[in-house]
């Protein structure tokens, strides 16, 4: 007598904003009568921080995992102990989406060292000898257009950063190169701009670049999206950068003097609005990488600020 428990959200894309009603039904499918000790539905949201082994050592990393910070917690008793009839039973539910006091609803984010996750957990207690039934369902939280604190707070700053950013890359513009090495680099000049370094996560990063000249043939031009997670600000922090996407925008020895578009869609789930809290930070950078035929490469780094709106 297999019974199945399922959570079905009303919204197909499972995306909710603060103040929304998270509504749906819990479905109990059973062949034959099903007795239980009560059905409870919990809505939870938490931030999990993990210290990188690279920064603090394996031992500490294992033990010093910071305690999850709960930012949302509600419980609903869907059914008192009793019996469900044979067939499908649908129990509707709805939760208003509000954070615990003094907490902020951050956007859902799955990183390597930082995880912000929201789930619905439905639990059915069963009588002795029968296994309890459990079903979880993740839902996604996004900012409303007025609670993207970073964007709202820095409106003026954003105005400034919203302006296009021009850049020119030449052997002379390179840092971390010794003078002798610099002289050995074949001459090149790449000019370009990013339309803005403040980007909405739902919109692509745009801009263009022109290879004005290059003595050595070019093999590839790539955009690398890097995520920088920083944990534990109070007692010394750990900072880790991971590549989350690499997109080629120039292939082969691209035509000189022709504007090649810079265009990168931010991958869902791996990006979120740039986040800065007391305990952790999630930031993003874009590297423009020019690879020459001889596999020499030149990288230009652009910190970008991501916003929801």
């Amino acid at each position, binding site marked *: 007598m297999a019974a199945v428990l399922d959570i079905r959200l009303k919204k197909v894309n499972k995306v909710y904003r603060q103040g929304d009603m998270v509504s749906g039904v819990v479905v109990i499918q059973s062949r034959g009568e099903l007795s239980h000790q009560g059905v409870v539905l919990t809505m939870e949201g938490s931030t999990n921080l993990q210290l990188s082994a690279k920064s603090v050592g394996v031992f500490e990393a294992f033990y010093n995992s910071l305690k999850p910070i709960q930012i949302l917690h509600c419980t609903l008793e869907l059914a008192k102990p009793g019996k469900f009839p044979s067939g499908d039973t649908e129990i509707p539910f709805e939760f208003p989406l509000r954070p615990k006091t003094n907490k902020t609803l951050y956007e859902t984010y*799955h990183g390597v060292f930082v995880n912000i996750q929201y789930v619905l957990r439905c639990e059915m207690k069963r009588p002795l000898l029968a296994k309890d039934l459990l079903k979880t369902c*993740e839902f996604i939280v996004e900012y409303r257009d007025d609670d993207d604190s970073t964007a709202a707070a820095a409106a003026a700053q954003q105005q400034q950063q919203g302006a296009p950013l021009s850049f020119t890359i030449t052997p002379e513009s390179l840092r971390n190169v010794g003078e002798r090495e610099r002289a050995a680099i074949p001459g090149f000049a790449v000019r370009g701009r990013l339309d803005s370094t403040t980007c909405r996560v739902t919109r692509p990063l745009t801009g263009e670049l022109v290879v004005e000249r290059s003595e050595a043939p*070019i093999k590839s031009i790539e955009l690398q999206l890097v995520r920088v997670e920083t944990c534990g600000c109070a007692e010394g922090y750990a900072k880790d950068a991971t590549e989350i996407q690499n997109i080629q925008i*120039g*292939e*082969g020895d691209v*035509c000189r003097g022709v504007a*090649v*578009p810079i265009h990168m869609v931010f991958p*869902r789930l791996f990006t979120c609005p740039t986040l800065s809290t007391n305990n952790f930070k999630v930031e993003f950078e874009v590297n423009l990488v020019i690879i020459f035929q001889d596999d020499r490469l030149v990288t230009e780094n652009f910190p970008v600020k991501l916003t929801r709106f």
Partner: protein
Amino acid sequence: MSAPRTTPTSNKHRENGGDIAYSWSIRERDYEAEKANHALPSEEVFDYPLKPICVSHGKIKSSGSERASTTSSSGASTPKRAAATSAFLDPLTSVLEGMDPLSQMAELDPLSQMAIEAAAGRKSSTSLGSKKANTLDDSFEPWKSKKGAILAKYTTSEKLTFTSFDLSPAEKAILKGPTSVTEKVKNRLEQLDDFEEGSVKEQLQLSQQEYVHRIDELNQSLLAAWEQDQKVKSLKIAIQCAKLLADASVIQFYPSKFVLVTDVLDTFGRLVYERIVDKACHVAPGAATRPPAELSPEHVPESAKETCRNWFFKIASIRELTPRLYVETAILRCHGFLRADAHSDALARLAATARGVGDPLVALYARAYLCRVGMRVAPTQRAYVAACLRDILDTYRQVGGDAVQNALALQKVDMAAYLQLFSPGLDWVLQCIAHGASEGTLEEVLAQARARCNTALLLNSVMTAFRPAYVAARARHFIEHICDCEDSGFPKHLLFRTLGLCLVVADPPEAQVSVGADFERQLSFCVEARAAFSNLEPVLVHLVHTVNLLAIDTRRVVKGHHTRKTAAFVHACAAYSFITIPSITNVFLRLNLYLVSGQVALLNHCLSQADSFLKAAISLLPDAPCSIEIDGKLRSTEPLLLEYVGNLCSTLLAAPDPPAQPPLYLARGLLNALATRGAGDTARADAYTHALALLSAAAQPAFAYCADGVVANDRLYGNDPKYVGEVARLAGTVLNELMQHVHDAAPSPDRQGALALHLVEVGVTHGDLGDPRFAALLGNLWTLAAKQGHADRMLMERTAQHVKARAARGAPVAAELLRKLA
């Protein structure tokens, strides 16, 4: 002993024919009376008699189209058609209905028409946005019709590298069944990464055929994966295919590779699109199934949109540029689910993205694919096509860059061959621009091309892609362009070929009525062309014909009455031909051209020129080889030569003798020319019979025909007995020569019989059967032919019948001959 030996006969016209053994007795003919006599009774009608009477106008059209479509199926007709039309269908009737057969061919039989309508209906009903504007009319040549030619043209015998990927780990991963959405997505992306980065299984060296087979296999596995709901695997296959296009090694195969690979991508695009349509129409929870017609973005349910977005996100994360560009283009149509006006943005963006592709060939074909999908999905959009062309012009210099030059050197492909690889793609882009574009747009493109990138390659594609009528109307401009543009290795003769193809389809502007600049410029173009292609025999032949046509057109314009100026022009035409013909090496081509040009000159009253042409033709005759090689086999030229002599004789009749030359000067020349051909030439005897016919016709008081406005020998000599006598004497000489041939043919009875019979035929047609001596000669020949036994019995029978019928009508026929024929 078989040659008939009769006593020498006297000839009534002869004055001094003592040296002649036989004489040709010419029958005087009244051509007008003969014509009236032979004419069939006729009556005036108002309807075309062969038109099926019971069929209405509309029916005829449809039956015509049916016919067009069933030509290959051995004319099996449907009962309906049998009832609608009479048993005999004259193919010309449809033409009389004012529809040319070609436009009828374009129509389809009812069944395929229905199928197409159904398909179009489905498409337009599921397409988003305005329906009417979203279809291309028939004047746009579809990609389908180009594929075959590309595959046939761009082939290679080199080994091709086919990078194969291990697709199996993906399946395992799927079976593991990740739980949360996030994990699933992560998992899928990892699979994609896997596939992109490391899991290259093998690099195969394949022949072209194996390669084609591999791509076909990929197509099959794409469909299979899709069937099994393995969407990620399907995407992987699409990416793998698109990756093949980033590889421009074995470059001469690239256009064909493009054809093959984009077929797979089209399949992928269609599957994704249909899947979302399916979702949008049937998965809307609770709601009744929505008819696909209402699928504008606001009607697409969120779940379908989400699926759609997922595809776009996945594709946007493809690492490499070329595959990403191709795969996104493949599913371009899906943008319509999200936003009604999304196509134009996407098209513009993708067009710009192609600028990042360094290899000019790869970039061009990526753009061609974009235009191909774009034309299908959003046929009203053109801005992106213009952008594509602009980018092509801007990046054309890449062709001369080190990367390309090194690759070409490595692959041992020369520049001309390399540039021709661009043509199918460039043709397509330009076709998209040209389709339905105004004259102004086309001018603009042309001007842009000239100003920014004046290359032969581009000009060639312009001529291919633009409407032939457009090109033809500016034929002269295009010639100037062709002369001006830099070829950079692209052979210019191809340009002239393309221009020629346009002119075949559409005529250049009609020349004005006054013989002015147009005619003269055409002639001077021919002069230039002759200089440019002096070593191309077919071109020279064509030029001579062109100039002859020019002269004939001039004649038509002035209605046969030349002014001083037009006369000078046709003289110039004749001079052109006369100078051009000798540089052709093929004797038969030269013979024919001399004859045709002579005829043209004659029609244009250029008598001395006509004379020169005919003289040249006659003096060339001895040089005509006895056998030529056709398809590697040695064949006798006898039939060719005979036909030619017949044609020449017919022309000589209309050509008056030049002043200060003895009568029948050209005919004499012909006889001499024939005599100089080797004795072993079997054609000679038969050619003599043609000459006999000519001489017989030349002795008539009024000739059967003449060139309009040209006084022929009949009126020139006014049937002067001296002239007639001269003709008869000549005929006698020919006859004697022929009799000698008959005599000499004795060792070969077949030949002798045939020759004798032939002579009888000509004699019966042209000779005076009332002359007893002549009749006796024919009678002897007849007996000889009958005796040899191998002559054509049927022919003999009919000849005998003819003579008897003539006798019965009261024509004088010697009784002796009639007895022999009986």
